[in-house]
């Protein structure tokens, strides 16, 4: 680590809509190392790599590659400098073939035109390197499974001859065999002098692969150290940072018997839900845990009437079945609300005003016979803003001018207006500041105390532990574990998420 860093960031800061995503970040990584970047959700890891790979431009600060300052105007510049990134959201084009995707930017040419035969040969070679000989270079990417796409993404990155390779959650959807392939590749690349930046939530992967670790928290670079310098417990403490952990409202004592609000019996849908059975009690906060993509989202969508062709029995309240559309779910005898995970495209109409968003789900409540009563509408909007303490200049401002936390409050306010009996929440605190998180948790507890039932998926174990009365863990479309009271611990959730019986992570 004595030589010049291959990538060096000095005093980099960037903010979105007034919310700081990174502030005063100094960061360096070196050739021939595998460097892990650790941090909670929203710590700024993804923003960091987007800056390094040229997708985002920092507001202030400088980037240097091999000691000389650079200003990337786009991902193409970064790629030319040898910085190649595998994004969490894939960067493959679904309607092009695998071969086209693998050599999308610098294809082999003959007479100035793309040489398809050479392209296919090259792709086959790269696919062989990632041990994916079963993927046909001529197949369309849209026809591949998610795990194959991720391997194609790896092949694409390799084909760009990286000096710096960034892997953002690259192993999240892979099979064990593919993961091992990638481990092998990273070792080879390190021997070739490539610097790999590795982002993962899986500590054992980091342990196995990386020689240096950097911890990020709340948009700041906390510390960088060599592997082995810190114990796991210390690393976790650095990531969480005692002083900023969200404080959760106290839980009520465990009640054995609750009247059921929702009962699922063997709910199945396509290959995503493989027989989910659970009971959600009145006034209960039921947490759903597990790794991303184990059917949690589908479970919530099914209850909200989005999915067609579900099998199994669902009882809502005294005997209603599954709703067939969000409108039915919202207007049934037991009103159901869904807080979606993607608030920008599913939760909000960004360019509409705050007021319009707040009343969007409850238009009937402020109108009679389809005609809106402006007085009731204003009162309802004021009420919603006050109840959730939304900080906004005027209800007439567009929602997109609000910070992430306040946007999420608007989504909550929208659904509280229908006075729902069951609230489904899909990762409601993603990308939100700590203060707002606490407010949301308090609000959830108040609602539960009022007798509402909350079904709540979170990718953050701490939230499940701190907030839920009961936690179920999904794995591959099934409930593999149910935890109550003191039994809700990080170890238990992690073990269940990986479907390891008895083994402590």
């Amino acid at each position, binding site marked *: 680590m004595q030589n010049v860093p291959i990538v060096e960031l000095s005093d980099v800061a960037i903010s979105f809509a007034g919310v700081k995503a990174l502030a005063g970040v100094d960061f360096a990584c070196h050739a021939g190392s595998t460097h892990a970047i650790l941090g909670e959700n929203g710590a700024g890891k993804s923003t960091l790599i987007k800056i390094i790979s040229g*997708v985002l431009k920092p507001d202030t600060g400088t980037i240097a590659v091999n000691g000389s300052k650079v200003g990337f105007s786009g991902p193409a510049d970064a790629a030319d400098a040898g910085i190649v990134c595998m994004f969490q959201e894939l960067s493959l*084009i*679904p309607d092009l073939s695998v071969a086209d995707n693998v050599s*999308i930017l610098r294809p082999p040419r003959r007479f100035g*035109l*793309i040489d398809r035969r050479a392209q296919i040969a090259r792709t086959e070679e790269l696919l062989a390197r990632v041990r994916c000989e079963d993927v046909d270079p001529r197949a369309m990417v849209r026809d591949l499974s998610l795990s194959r796409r991720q391997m194609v993404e790896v092949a694409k990155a390799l084909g760009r001859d990286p000096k710096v390779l960034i892997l953002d959650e690259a192993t999240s959807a892979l099979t064990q065999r593919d993961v091992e392939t990638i481990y092998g590749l990273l070792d080879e690349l390190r021997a070739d002098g490539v610097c790999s930046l590795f982002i993962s939530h899986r500590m054992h992967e980091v342990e196995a692969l990386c020689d240096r670790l950097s911890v990020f928290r709340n948009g700041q670079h906390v510390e960088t150290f060599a592997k082995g310098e810190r114990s796991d417990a210390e690393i976790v403490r650095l990531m969480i940072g005692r002083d900023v952990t969200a404080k959760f409202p106290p839980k009520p004592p465990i009640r054995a018997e609750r009247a059921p609000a929702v009962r699922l019996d063997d709910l199945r*849908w396509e290959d995503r839900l493989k027989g989910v059975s659970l009971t959600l009690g009145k006034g209960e906060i039921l947490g759903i845990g597990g790794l991303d993509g184990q059917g949690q989202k589908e479970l919530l969508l099914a209850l909200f009437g989005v999915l067609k062709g579900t099998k199994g029995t669902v009882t809502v309240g005294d005997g209603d079945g599954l709703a067939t559309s969000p409108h039915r779910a919202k207007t049934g005898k037991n009103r159901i609300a869904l807080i979606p995970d993607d608030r920008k495209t599913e939760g909000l109409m960004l360019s509409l005003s705050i007021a319009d968003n707040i009343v969007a789900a409850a238009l009937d409540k402020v109108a009679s016979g389809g005609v809106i009563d402006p007085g009731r509408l204003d009162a309802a909007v004021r009420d919603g803003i006050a109840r959730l303490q939304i900080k906004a200049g005027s209800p007439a401002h567009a929602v997109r001018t609000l910070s992430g936390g306040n946007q999420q409050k608007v989504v909550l306010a929208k659904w509280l207006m229908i006075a729902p009996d069951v609230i489904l929440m899909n990762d409601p605190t993603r990308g939100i500041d700590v203060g707002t998180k606490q407010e949301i948790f308090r609000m959830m507890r108040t609602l539960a105390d009022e007798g509402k039932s909350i079904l709540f998926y979170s990718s953050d174990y701490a939230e499940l532990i701190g907030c839920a009365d009961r936690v179920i863990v999904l794995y591959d479309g099934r409930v593999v574990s149910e935890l109550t009271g003191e039994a809700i611990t990080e170890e238990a959730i992690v073990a269940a998420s990986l479907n390891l019986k008895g083994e402590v992570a």
Partner: protein
Amino acid sequence: MTRWIAQNRGFAAALVLFAALYFSYHLMHPRGFSTAVLVQNANELVAIGFVAMAQTVPVLLGGLDLSVGAVMTLAACVASWLLDGTPAQIALGMIATLAVGAGFGLMNGLIVVYGRLQPIIATLATGAIAIGLALLIRPNPGGNVDGDLNWALTNSVYDFAETYGFARGGDAAWLQPFVNIPVPLILLFGTACLVWLPFKRTVTGRTIYAIGSAEGAAYASGLPIDRARIAAFTLAGFFAACGGLYLAIQTSTGNADVVQAGAYTLNSIAAVVLGGTALLGGTGGVIASILGAMILRAVSFYFRILDIDPLLQPLIEGIVLLTAVSAVAFRTFGVKNQLELFR
């Protein structure tokens, strides 16, 4: 082969539909299959074929060009002044015509990219400008096109060779397998093969598909997005000008007809959809759109030979179009996750 069909289902379906339509047309034709009929059909195809090609390129981006019919008209009016005189003058006239179209397309592209206007509305306005220019050039229908050129390009290869006296006036032995092919078909498919297929195999061409398929991913991959957009509209202008050039040669006139320009634009969209190109972008191609145009034309051929009241023609054309697009759309009922329906 099976993969090709799976990957080009829309195109394959269009191919089958056209083959069935056109084959039965010839079976029912009172005089049976003949070169004369083929030549006549081909002539009617060329202009709409080129305009459909033009429309395809912006559609692949996920946009739309409502000025293609007007640019075709403008090009035809320009050509109606320039296609006479010495061979060199005629050749120069052709180049000028195509340059006018490509230049107009370039302007569209610049407005869309740097003016940040929606393609639909920007090209709606530039279409009016194109028609205005066409009217300036040709206030009244008319024109003067070299007669030999007209004859040679609107007939079979034999007539072409005979007109210009090459391959021993069309009697050379090596030419015999080709003598019955209509020249207009060669022009149409030749342009597609010489311009579009190579273009598709450049990074810019591939970027057009990438933008229509997943713009975010295209950007993250570092593809030249602005350049591809401008190129797409320029190419649309070029193809539209090819259509106009041919129309002027075929009719020996330029006619700044607003209604006709609008009809060509709308039919080009129909042809693109019938060929299996998705209006949302990303899949399809200009060859498919030529096929779409051929289907549109084949339907109209029937009215000549069958004893159908010609007054029913627009009705049947409309029903064919609606049925085709609705048939594709019925798959929405099979979607299991209703969120996929809403973008």
